[in-house]
């Protein structure tokens, strides 16, 4: 049975096998390839999206479980002030090396700051521990999040 859900503000109907993970519906059916495949089993965070605002591993979330939910992906990150501020902080700190993990890192960091706008240093570390960066840009990822937490986010940023 097709599943009706909202992705980045648009209503979508996905007619895929019930157990197909959201990741593969996004990438393969909708051509939205910003969300990345890293491990496929919930271990790396590369595929992180927001489901009703909560950071969620799209590789381990079947499409059929998302009926009526609001999904947002990296492609719409700039629409949120926190997301925008983090994107800019990422560029200012030149966070990335290969960049492959960074969509997931940004989505997870955005969910963290939306919930807890001024996390302590170790709160950032434990909140980000689920996201692997093979290039190990951890120092800069941490610094960029701390920067946004310290400066706050204005609604019109």
């Amino acid at each position, binding site marked *: 049975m097709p599943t009706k859900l909202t992705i980045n503000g648009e209503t979508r109907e996905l007619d895929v096998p019930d157990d197909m993970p959201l990741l593969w519906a996004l990438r*393969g059916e909708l051509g939205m390839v910003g969300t990345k495949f890293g491990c496929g089993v919930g271990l790396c965070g590369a595929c992180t999206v927001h489901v009703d605002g909560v950071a969620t591993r799209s590789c381990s979330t079947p499409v059929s479980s998302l009926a009526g939910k609001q999904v947002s992906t990296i492609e719409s990150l700039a629409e949120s002030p926190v997301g925008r501020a983090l994107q800019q902080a990422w*560029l200012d700190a030149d966070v990335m090396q*290969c*960049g492959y993990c960074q969509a997931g890192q940004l989505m997870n960091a955005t969910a963290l700051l939306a919930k807890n706008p001024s996390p302590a240093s170790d709160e950032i570390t434990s909140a980000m521990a689920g996201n692997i960066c093979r290039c190990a840009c951890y120092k800069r990822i941490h610094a960029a999040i701390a920067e946004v937490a310290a400066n706050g986010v204005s609604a019109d940023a």
Partner: protein
Amino acid sequence: MRELAQTAQLSRRSLLKAGALAGGGLFLSVTLPGMAQAATGGGAAELNAFVSIAPDGVITIVSKNPEIGQGIKTMLPMLIAEELDADWDQVKIVGSDYHPTKYGFQFAGGSMSTPMNWLPMRQAGAAARQMLLEAAALEWGVAPAGLRTSKSTITDPASGRTMTYGQVASSAAKSKVPDLAKVPLKDEKDFVIIGRAIGGIDSPKIVRGEPIFGVDTQLPGMKYAAFERAPVFGARLRSADLEAAKAVPGVEDVFVIEGGDNPAELVDGVAIVAGNWWIANKAREKLKIDWDTGEWASHSSANYDAQAKKLWAEPPKDTIVEEGDVSAAFAGAAKVIEAEYHYPFLAHVPMEPQNCTALVKEDGSVEMWAPTQMPQSGHQGVAKMLGVPGEKVTVHITRMGGGFGRRLTNDFMHQAAAIAARKKGTPIQLIWSREDDLRSDFYRPAGWHKFRAAIDAEGKLTGLEDHFVTFSTKGEIPMFAQMGPKVFPAGYVPNLKYTVSQMESRVPMGALRAPQSNALSYVFQSFLDEVAAEQGSDLPTLLLSLLRGKPDEPMQRGFGGESPGFSPKRAIGVIEKAMQMADWSTPAAEGRAKGFGFYFSHNGYFAEVVEASLSRSRQPVVHHVWAAGDVGKHIINPHGALNQIEGSIIDGIGQALGLAVKIEGGAVQQSNFHDYPLPRMPVTPTIDVEFVKSDNPPTGLGEPALPPVVPALTNALHALTGKRVRSLPIDRKLFA
């Protein structure tokens, strides 16, 4: 330690071509013949640079080397823009396809891009600047020598007139083409772009999630493929029952691919094609394949370990190097110490799983979108496999989600092309699962070292022996499982002997970031730490005593051309710097200890100090790393440079703390990040980096910061607990 040193020296014969752009403006291409030998053993390759300046002032630079996250796509254009005196904000950087005759040597690996491109890229920029100057001088009726340039603008100080590069670009196309070897270069103290921290050129696209990686390739009508190959290395496909997989809804085709026994090319397997990769991949569960594993199913890590011990008990098969009189040194020793070391196979696991998109057209021509560090060999291999001439194969190089040496081997390109050849006219995107990636790698070879050291009555290290046990494949020791005769401290201990024995294996082996050095640094710098402790001294003191007063070694030939030999002076420079940074002579805080490591690899010198402790549950914790590096006189882009060093250090710590690929039943046991636990944010220590800027051309930073951190950590743990870590990854039971 020095066998992979490669710096290219500039050839004198270079070719500069210039002309007018179609829509007006200046176009420049520089060819430098005979720069480098292709790593595949091919003939002399060329190194080219492409610059164009349009009438609107936009300067386009083609960045031809594959980008794996090492920052090359930003760095090479910086070199051109510097000498061109370009306004960096007007520089547009475009990637290039693989093109054997147009762009010459395109390659990412061995930290070679910096040394190979340092001079020629700047010469190309300087040549373009000179042509612009001449055109402006002609127009104003003055001598070019009096004119000044800055930020894409030419000024005549005498009259105060100015002209932009864009305005003069079209007439500059008619300027005399300068002699590249004679064009004057800037005084290096006047650099304004080199040395500036510049963000990665693709970064804005990355934070928006735009499709720039290989796996993001999307083509009309594209289908996805999954590929099932033998779990046991060396196994061949006997027969396969494909019916159940074919019956899975959504699966469009299932077929056997017949390969050969070279894992770097095409191996036997079964391809499944579907409109969605997840469907194709899941259908693999339904395949019934009978593999002929031959003798290889009996191979295991435990077996290799037992064989290594047996080989140690026998005379070595070969001598790598013998200096002085080793037997006499041991006969006359006041003290002899012995130790056995081991390190495991490691996988690369770049974050973007292997993938490749291929289209074989009806006329037999081939188009590929490949995340490869070595497009050359992939291009040749695919052309040969499909029996089409090279010019019928086009390879688009995509950005890569990490490489670390994995994408130097193009097995995935062969697979994608072989599958696409069966689906003519349909673009096929082959994607590997993470499990495929971990189980079908070209692994950092495991190795065993049995050391002996002779210390005389005065406490001097007089003799050193290493019996190295490694692997052979079909009788030959693979390149990256070898150890060279110059591995430090060869040449610095009066009596020294390295020997080698090997055992046969079919586990594919290859280059992992800082190949050879990433393992040899651990065993040699750990054993030297043992020697120093026995002397009542410490490792940096021992290293300095071996190195002081020794001359620089002569130039040597590597596969990228000539490179400077090992310099004890530069080594001493970083060792002393690291000692000073870490306040080495002052003990660490209560419950913590410091350890030292030094290594020279890929032309870079790094000394590092690790401060570590044990957690309440007796797990090693790294708090602080101080790193001193000498990679020449300039750090071209400090952003990229520091990022590479920080990444290398955490990478090395992660390897030491928990990574190993184990073989059982001829197959890899690990499957995903739960049993191959890459380091995560909580592992990240404080990292301080300083550069010792020596008067040498700049060299690369992708690798040399990794090797010393591993022994620095194990040596710190010894200082803390008195326990030697003689096998990696660190066995936590050691400290229980």
